[in-house]
């Protein structure tokens, strides 16, 4: 009996893979409908746009400046929050948030990410990660300000409120082929 159990035990020991699948969850935008006329130029003002480009050599160009990836998260946070209501950072639109019962100035900032076909996947994920981290940190701070709780501990309703206060606006440019 014990022998058979041992045999099975060793079999399961060998075949077991304990790794849990983890990763960055994102949602792709729906494909634009071909039948519907595209609304030309959804006009996003320049001040509301945070452009991140990654070239084929994995270099980062943020708002027209070469940047190290370590600075990216803070730069993105600064952009989204626009704490000093600066003229060249995004507009904040007071929006009524029903879960909160009051209006909150929601930032209209959009982060636009564009990469080259030659960009490495590793770099792309690093950048994605930093940008998602920026949003997560903002939400975490907001959760503490509003509810004195961590974002992960919020109830569904509270989570919705925070998400409405700081909507994740991370857009990826439609891929285009520019030469080779």
């Amino acid at each position, binding site marked *: 009996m014990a022998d058979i159990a041992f045999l099975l035990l060793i079999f399961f020991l060998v075949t077991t893979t304990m*790794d849990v699948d983890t990763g*960055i*969850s994102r949602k*792709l*935008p729906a*494909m634009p409908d071909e039948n519907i006329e595209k609304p030309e130029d959804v006009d996003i003002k320049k001040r509301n746009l945070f452009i991140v480009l990654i070239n084929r050599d994995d270099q980062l160009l943020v708002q027209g400046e070469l940047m190290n990836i370590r600075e990216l998260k803070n730069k993105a946070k600064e952009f989204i929050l626009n704490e000093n209501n600066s003229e060249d950072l995004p507009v904040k639109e007071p929006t009524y948030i029903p879960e909160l019962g009051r209006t909150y100035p929601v930032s209209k900032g959009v982060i636009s990410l564009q990469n080259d*076909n030659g960009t490495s996947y590793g770099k792309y*994920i690093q950048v994605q*990660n930093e940008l998602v981290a920026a949003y997560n940190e903002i939400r975490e701070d907001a959760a503490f300000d509003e509810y004195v709780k961590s974002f992960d501990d919020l109830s569904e309703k509270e989570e919705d409120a925070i998400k409405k206060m700081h909507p994740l606006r991370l857009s990826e440019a439609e891929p285009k082929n520019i030469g080779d």
Partner: protein
Amino acid sequence: MAFERKRKKGSPGINTASLPDIVFMLLFFFMVATVMREVELKVEVNVGDLPEATEIKKLEKKSLVSYIYVGKPKPAFRTMYGSEPRIQLNSAFADVNDIREYIIAERELRDEAEIPFMTTSLKVHVDTKMGIVTDIKQELRKASALKINYSAQERTSEL
């Protein structure tokens, strides 16, 4: 002497009566914890080849996840498929154009109610160029499989 005759040489053996119990306990533990690998990997995306990130979440509901692997073919397949990164769906090499079919096939295996919760997990080798990944993303958009997960592991080193 009557008493001395009983004494044996060496130490007495350990009682093994409880051994099967312990073995069974371990056996059940491993049986429950085991996740059988469903597909044989033909491209090189081992655990260490995935990118590192901090904002990672656990992938819930494994039954609703479909996997797309991208990486260089393993040495055994190089003569046939070359050494450029390739896509693997299920257990076969595939082309970008096969993705839509694959997603549709995956959907048919699930309940209709579960379809909106289906996620596609992209397991891509770090050194892959984005061109192929962008193509996959476009195909997924065309198939309206919008929930994706970039498989990544916990970051261990400084950025």
